[in-house]
Each structure stands twice: as C-alpha cells, then as structure tokens.
C-alpha cells in the first residue's frame, strides 16, 4: 500500500479537449494518498472532465483527447502499454446521479468482483456484507439482497453505488457530485462513510456544494473555467485563500 502523505496520483500539465478549445488547461495537481481531495468550482469549470480523465472514462467519447500526463503510483495511465481495464479496477467511480444497474442489490455489488474473476460464493457474500456496511446501507437492505436495486430510494441507491465501487477493492475512489440529488440525511450518511474510507483509500470528491468540501476534504482545489486557480489545505482555502477569486467563490459572491 502507498504510504500516507505520499503522492498517489500526480497530474502533470494536463489539458483535455472535446473540440479545438481545451476544457481543461494545463492542470498540475498532486493528489496525496489516503486523504480526501475536494474539487470545487462553478458548473462548466471542468471538474467532471478532470475526474473522468483519472479513470480514462473520457476515452469513451471519440472526440476527446488529452495532453500532459497522469501518473498513478508513478506510472503514466495514458501510456499505450497501460491496461485501461485494470486501471478502472484500481480507480473506482461513483456518478452524480444514483446509477444502479437494473439487477438485484447483490448482483450490483458483485458485478465488478465477478468481472475480476472472483467466483467463490463465500468470498462474494463477504464482499457484499463488508461493502454495504462501509456504505452504511447493510442494515437497511440485508433482508432483501435479491430484490431489485431499482426499488431502493435515491439515497439508498447512491450508497449502493458507493458500496459497489468499494466491492472492487480499488485504491482510488472518484466521486462526481455524489450528493447532488440527495436529501440532507442521505448526504450526511455518505459524508460519514467518506470520512471513514479515507483511512484506506485515496478519495477525489467533486462537489458543487462548497460546504461539503469544507466538511470532509483534507485538501481542496478550486477550478474555474478549465483552470486550477488554487489548491491548499481545506482550512486555508476557506479562511485565507491566496487568490481573490477563490475567496469570492467560497463566500458565495459568485458561482
């Protein structure tokens, strides 16, 4: 395991394009292991694009391309020899809207592990239980694991998606505004889960809710119009930002 405070992901001079103009400009951002990196910024600032370059999900769009490097444990994930499928097993993702697959709760959890070749029933059952417990969902669903995931409430579905990502036992978890569609109680549950998870995982949390970053992130990066304006300890971003635009944003003067 990568030691704490060392750099898990090093983003170096990264630009991302969907057309002639870059959506991300020259981002350099080291992401420390076993901590939560919050990414804040107004809509259209490139937060989601940034996140999707870290597990190469942007590759699915034929028109997208990048410049620069993204190093995971020192290895360039965009190197032609780097295996994308194994990358996505190491770097899990939770999407903005709860996206359970239309199958049972248990099958949602075991989808990733099965693809990774785990067939042992006891091992899969154990993964189901531990991941659902980590996502604070176990007690609510333990008696109906074989019922459809589509029948859960929105908040439950999003915790299921978190559990599904955890069941792959990734090293990094990317979260793309995971609470944007959730009520305050569900949001609190997710945040509670995240603060426990950072002891084990490297977490990158994109959020539209600056207060959420203030509550859970160790370091926070502020993105604006495709550029990284500032990154620092969360406490400093919210109290003594170096850039006036950061201050304006976190105090709600724009965005």
């Amino acid at each position: 395991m990568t030691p704490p405070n060392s750099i898990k992901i090093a983003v170096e001079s990264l630009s991302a394009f969907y057309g002639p103009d870059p959506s991300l400009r020259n981002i350099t951002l080291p992401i420390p292991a076993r901590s939560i990196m919050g990414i804040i910024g107004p809509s259209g600032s490139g937060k989601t694009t940034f996140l999707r370059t870290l597990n190469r999900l942007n590759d699915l769009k034929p028109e997208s391309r990048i410049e620069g490097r993204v190093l995971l444990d020192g290895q360039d994930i965009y190197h032609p020899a780097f295996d994308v499928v194994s990358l996505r097993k190491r770097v899990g993702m939770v999407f903005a809207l709860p996206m359970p697959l239309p199958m049972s709760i248990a099958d949602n959890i075991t989808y990733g592990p099965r693809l990774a070749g785990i067939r042992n029933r006891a091992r899969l059952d154990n993964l189901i239980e531990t991941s659902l417990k980590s996502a604070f969902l176990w007690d609510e669903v333990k008696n109906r694991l074989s019922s459809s995931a589509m029948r859960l409430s929105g908040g439950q579905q999003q915790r299921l998606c978190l559990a599904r990502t955890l069941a792959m036992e990734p090293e990094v978890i990317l979260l793309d505004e995971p609470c944007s569609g959730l009520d305050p109680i569900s949001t609190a549950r997710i945040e509670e889960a995240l603060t426990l998870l950072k002891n084990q995982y490297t977490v990158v949390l994109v959020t539209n809710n600056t207060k959420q970053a203030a509550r859970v992130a160790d370091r926070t990066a502020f993105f604006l119009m495709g550029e990284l304006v500032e990154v620092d300890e969360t406490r400093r971003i919210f109290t003594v930002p170096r850039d006036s635009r950061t201050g304006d944003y976190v105090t709600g003067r724009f965005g």
Partner: protein
Amino acid sequence: MRIAPKYTQRLAVALLGGATLLTLLVLLFIILFVLQKGLPAVTWQFLSQAPRDMGRSGGILPVIVGTFLLPLLAIAIALPLGVGTAVYLTEYTRETRLTRVIRFGTDCLAGIPSIIFGLFGFIFFVVILGFGWSLLSGGLTLALMILPTIIRTTEEAIRAVPNTFREVSFSLGATRWETVLHVVLPNALPGIVTGIMLSLGRSIGETAAVIFTAGSALRMPTSVYDSVRTMAVHFYLLAREGLSNENAYGTAAVLILAVLGVNLTAYWIMNRFVGRHT
C-alpha cells in the same frame, strides 16, 4: 367560426376511439370467421394423424411439425447473425458513411417481396448448393428474409439502453464485450424479443418463399434435408386445388390458434423473466 375546445376534444375522443374499435372489430371478425368455419374440422384425429389422399382426409400432424420447425430454424440462423450485426453497428463502430450505407441496405432488404427471396432461395440453396427442397433451404431463405427485421429492432433496442449503464459498467472494470454481454443485451432483450415475434409471425404465415424452397411434402420430416409443408402452404394448396374446404379452414383455425399461443407464451416469458428488475 371556431368550435369550442370542449367539442373538438369530444370529437377527437370519438374519432380516435372509433378507429380503435373498428380495428378491433375487423380483427375479431376475421378470427371468428376462420374459427367458426374451421373449428368443426379440428378434432384430436385431425391434430394427431398424418394426412391421407393429398389432405382430403386424415390429419395435419406433419404439417404442424413443419410449421414450427421451419421458422425455428430460420430464427436460429438469423438471430445470432442479426444480433451480432446490430451489436457491431451500434457498439463497435462510430456513425460513419459505411454504417449508414449498411443500414440503408438492410432497410432495402426489408422491403423486398417474399417471392423474390423464394426465387433466390430456389436458385441458390435448392439448385446451386444442392440442398433440394428441404427444411434447410427453407430455413436459410426465411432467415435472409427476417434478418433485416431482427437487425433493425435489435439496433433500436440497443440504442434505447441508457449510456449511463455503459459508463457504470466500464467504470467497474468491464471490457466492451463484457458490457455488451452483461448490461447492454439484457436491457435490450424486450426489444429483441419483439423483433423475434415479428419475424416469427412473418415466417409462420409465409407461403411464396416456402413453396419454392421447402417444397410441400406431406411426410413427417426426419432430417433438415427433408422437404416440409407448413400450415400456410397446406391451406393454400387445399383451397386452390379444391381438395377439401373443411380441412383447409381447419388448418387455418389451427394456424391462428398456434400464432396466438406463441405470442401469449412469449409475453408470459417476458413478464416472468425480463421485467423483474426494471
């Protein structure tokens, strides 16, 4: 002068409802007409015996068997080809001039009259490849005939699967093939089944293409190289040759009930096994 909206609303309800009612009545009339003329001939002997004297007497058992075997063979051939083509066009290629040409081609293929398929099947499968009038020639010909339907319905069904499902699957470490297999196809299944049902209906009722390629033998088939007769062909021959009007309508009644039975079974299977997690 403007008619008040509440009257145009009533008029719309009356016209639309009338159209629906008329369609249902015509359908009901045809079914009842055939059943009323045909059911008296349908006895256990009719269903369980071989025809005698060219079908003037006896039953239609080999014809029933042929009616089910031929479309089943056609679907067994066309389904993997059609679904494979649809998956390739939607999941593995980008929208280019080539895919548009292929799609235009399948649309044209869908519009070709069945007799042309029959003629092609006769020349190619029966004569050139030497399969003779047989289940195999008929199955291959019908497979070509229903291929466009299966490709297009499968394509539409695959396109209707939300892209987010694919992204979730990829994000969980799936390859494109695993995503197709575990996420795309299961979610497209109801649409694919619709395509199969349409194809099944079309091939069960087909006569022109079948007479030219599968022949019209009344024996029970024992291999794919045997000629078979389907109920639609049997009805056509009995009625045209004036062999037996009673048995012709009896055959038609069995055919209608069989199609109804197949459709009901398919819907039952869909509701039972497919709709569970949506």
